[in-house]
Each structure stands twice: as structure tokens, then as C-alpha cells.
């Protein structure tokens, strides 16, 4: 079974994230980039499936600026076999509609049975991309998986829901998104890091992937940011040390705010 894992480089989880004043996109300058945490679980799951099956290839696919190579390297050093990097200035500012189109096109250049991704990225936090990719690829949608079982030509997952989980099954090709409960991602070993340097990395431009330039980037997107502002600073809260009456003080506060 051949698997593609889509990964994204995002600003470091603890870094203060900003929007750029110029074009209102996520400002990636001067912020350390890391692999989106949830994508590590996706890479891990792909590797586990491959290891259990004993055949097939794991390809990492990323769309993003040059710097995203760091994230590709990480996935390769965890154990992925090869990588495809979709990189083109024309992609800058793509929203979900444009990104799903571009990624679907890039996926068209890689033979695969399964696409695996994290349920959301820590910067955009939309969690719509896996479903949109399934729609574009005409593949079965198996999202929010906390457990994945691969049969011959079928995949069964436990989809995390509000009240528990659904058992959902589909035949391949399928798009799977994973939640963090699914596994514990491995750390790249020294050997893995060395091996990663020799693994094949293909770079795709818009035209390589057959992407129409007017369907991506800011102009090709379906949404635009009208304006943004930092949240008005919250008045510093009142913090009280418990002197044996902390519970009563809290109750007073709740009463003053009409919660009780």
C-alpha cells in the first residue's frame, strides 16, 4: 500500500503568531517553523501501516515556501521514503479552497492508495482540508481517526465524535485524518537523520503539477481578510491568595457577575 502523508510547517506552537500588516497572511518571518504537531502523528501512522504491511512506500508531500524543507527532512528522518515539495511564489496566500485544489493536483502526480494528514494545523485550525481533499480526489473520507485498521483494499477507522466514536469503513483510495490519541510519534534516530539526507526529494512548481495559476494564491482564494486587530487587552484579572476563604471569595465573585 502506497501512502502519501501531507505535512505542513507552522510557526512554533509557543511563538507569538502574527498576521502580516502587508498582506494579512500568517507572518512566518522571524518565527521558528516546526512540523505541525498533528502531522507527526500522521507520519507515524503511515510508517506503522507500512511496517505492518511489509510493503509499499511512504511519501511526504508539503506545500509551502523554501523553508518547509526543514519539515520534509524531519518526516524523512522519522522514516518516510521520499518527498515531494510543492513550492511556488504563486501559492502564497492560498486559503482552504485554493490549498485543497493545489494539494489535490500535486497528489495526482504521486501514485497512492491512502492519503494521511493531521486533523488540523495549529495555525489555521480549520480542520476542513482532509474533507476537501477527499471531495476533490473522489476518495473516501475517513477523518478524525483515533484508530486505523488496514485490510486488503479497505480501511476501517474509529472516528472520534462528540459522544464517543463511529466505526467507519471504506475501500481505497481514501483520505484519513488522525487525532493525537492515535499513537506516540517516534523521534528521528541519528541513523534516520543521516539517511534522510540521501532520500529523493522532488520539487514541483505550479506548472509541474498542472496547477492553473489563477486558482491559487491570494487571487485564487475564495476568502479575504477585511481587517484584523489584536484583541483589546483584557483587564488584568483579580488574583487572590487563598487564606482559608478562597471558596467564599470565588462565590462572591460569581454572585457579583450574576452566575449564582
Amino acid at each position, binding site marked *: 500500500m502506497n501512502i502519501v502523508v501531507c505535512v505542513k510547517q507552522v510557526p512554533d506552537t509557543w511563538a507569538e503568531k502574527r498576521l502580516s500588516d502587508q498582506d494579512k497572511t500568517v507572518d512566518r518571518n522571524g518565527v521558528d517553523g516546526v512540523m505541525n504537531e498533528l502531522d507527526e502523528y500522521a507520519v507515524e501512522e503511515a510508517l506503522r501501516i507500512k511496517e505492518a504491511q511489509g510493503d509499499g512506500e511512504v511519501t511526504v508531500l508539503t506545500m509551502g515556501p523554501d523553508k518547509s524543507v526543514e519539515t520534509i527532512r524531519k518526516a524523512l528522518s522519522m522514516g518516510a521514503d521520499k518527498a515531494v515539495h510543492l513550492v511556488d511564489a504563486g501559492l502564497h496566500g492560498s486559503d482552504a*479552497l485554493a490549498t485543497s485544489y493545489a494539494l489535490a493536483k500535486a497528489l495526482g502526480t504521486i501514485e497512492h492508495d491512502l492519503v494521511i494528514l493531521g486533523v488540523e494545523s495549529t495555525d489555521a485550525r480549520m480542520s476542513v482540508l482532509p474533507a476537501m481533499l477527499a471531495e476533490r480526489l473522489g476518495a473516501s473520507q475517513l477523518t478524525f481517526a483515533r484508530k486505523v485498521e488496514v485490510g486488503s483494499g479497505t480501511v476501517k477507522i474509529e472516528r472520534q465524535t462528540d459522544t464517543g*466514536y463511529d466505526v467507519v469503513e471504506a475501500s481505497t483510495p481514501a483520505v484519513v485524518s488522525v487525532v493525537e490519541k492515535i499513537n506516540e510519534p517516534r523521534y528521528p534516530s541519528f541513523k534516520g537523520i543521516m539517511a534522510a539526507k540521501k532520500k529523493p526529494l522532488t520539487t514541483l512548481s505550479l506548472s509541474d503539477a498542472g496547477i492553473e495559476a489563477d486558482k491559487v494564491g491570494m487571487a485564487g482564494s475564495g476568502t*479575504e481578510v477585511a481587517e484584523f486587530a*489584536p484583541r483589546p487587552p483584557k483587564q488584568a484579572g483579580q488574583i487572590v491568595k*487563598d487564606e482559608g476563604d478562597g*471558596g467564599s471569595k470565588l462565590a462572591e465573585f460569581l454572585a457579583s457577575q450574576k452566575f*449564582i
Partner: protein
Amino acid sequence: MAEVLVLVEHVDGAPKKVTYELLTLARSLGEPSAVFIGNGFDNAKDKLAEYGARKIYVAADAELDGFLVAPKAEVLAQIVSSSSPAAVLIPSTPEGKEIAGRLAVKTESGVITDAVGVDDGFVAKQSIFGGAINVSSKVSKGTPIITVRPNSTAPEAAPAQPTEEQVSATISDAAKGAKILDRVTEKKGGRPELTEAAIVVSGGRGLGEGKNFELIEKLADTLGAAVGASRAATDAGWYPHTNQVGQTGKTVSPQLYMAIGISGAIQHRAGMQTSKTIIAVNKDPEAPIFELVDFGIVGDLFNVVPQLTEEIEKRK
């Protein structure tokens, strides 16, 4: 006035509160039409009228219940193409967002998720980066598709006499690719649902062991609140995963959020930072959760929480 579609979120026909919120919001933007997909329409009909639906589209094909997301997006796409609404509002739940995403692809439209409000001209208000920045965005292509978070609008009844239109959806084989084999419920009943509750009381590692969640439950019950948990608590098996609040759990935005024995890791904040009033009890004065609070107690939760519960009981 322009038609605004609202996708009804329901359990066996009984609409969830977010449906009434969206109908109320839609009324401020145009003429609300409800789209009901699935079984149990009889349980929904009167309620949708009460909250002002002028028209109700009903797609009650029994087949629709055994599949996820994709068929619902197909039904909506058919209605969008026949009625050309001014916008589509969908509850910002995991499934709602996925339906919105697929609908956006089908109709070549822009999609905005997690709106906390929608103004004239379908300008969506969002709060991003864990609540640090407020953004107004617009859909610039196709039909605006906006998912709106529960608790964003106060639901107001405005009785109407809706017309009904049966929609006979033709579901493609592709949309039926993923079949639901089983639905398993893990949640304990009796308390309000996390994402819909006006008050959420959450417990974390500070509780020390699972049994101590009783303290949280007691406090929650005196307030009619839902119970949440940090990932440390759900991972330890102290409380069900379905109650996890945070980046990979639920996003809640209640009137009041109480974090008990929770440090306030960034992944936790991502799920609760837009709560209107935030309270924390933590014995560590340096805990990052205190950066967010309106009111905080530095102290041992095993002293503070029982006293608080008792005090609330007394005041009732």
C-alpha cells in the same frame, strides 16, 4: 430579502441549541431557511417554526443516516444550486466544518470556519491564534459558506409559518464511499453538552486521581454546568476523552469557564480562550492560566472547591 440557509444540527430530529442560534443570526442577515437532513423531522418542525424559519427544506432519505459528511454536502449543494441563497450558515462542529469544506469545493465558494459572529454583508468575525487576534473576513468567490461557533448568538424565538419543500436528493456512489458500521456512545449522560453549555467546569492533573473528579462534578452540578478535562486528565483515564477541552479536544466558548488544577498549556488555551469569563484555581501562582483569568484563586483546590460548592448551595 435574500434567503440564508441554515443547516439544522439535530439528534434524531431534536434540533440542538446551535440551530436556534443560527436561525436567530440568519434573521438579522436575511430570510432564514432551515435545511433538515436525516430522520425525525416531526421532532424538529415546530421548533424550527418557533425560531423563525420561513422555509424548511427536508431531505429525509433513510439512506442518509448511514454515511458521513459527503451525502449531506451533496444535498446542500443541490439546494444551493436550485435556490441560490445569499449565504449558508452551518454549525461549527467537526462534522459541520467538513460539510462546509466539501460544499465549498462543490460550489467553488469560499469557506470561513469558526465565526463568532456575522455582520451585514456576511462579514464573519473570527478570533484566531488562541484568541490573540480578532479578524473580519469575507467570502469573495461563490456563495458565502460560514460555520458559526455554538454560543455566538443568543437564540430568540420569532414564530413563523414556514413552507416546506421536500428535497429528493440523489446521492452519488462516491459520497457513499465511507460507511458507518457502528456508533458507540461513551459519554456519561445527565449534564449539558460541553460545546453548548453556558458554564463549563474543567479539571486537570491537579486533581491527582480520577476519583477526585467527583469534586468537579459536584461543583458543576450546583451550577448546571458541563464538565471538561485537560488532556493530562483524559490521558490518565480520569475522565472520558469526549470531555477533553483544547486543541485536539473540544473548543468551548461558554459564558463562564472554570479551570481547576489546570496549568493553562497553549493547547488547552486553544480550546477555551474565547470564554467570556474565566476563573482558575491553582496552587502555583506562576501557572500560565492566570494570564487569562478574570478571577483567580492561588490555593489548594481540595480546600477551595468544596468550600465554593458549599457556598453556592447556601446561596441558592
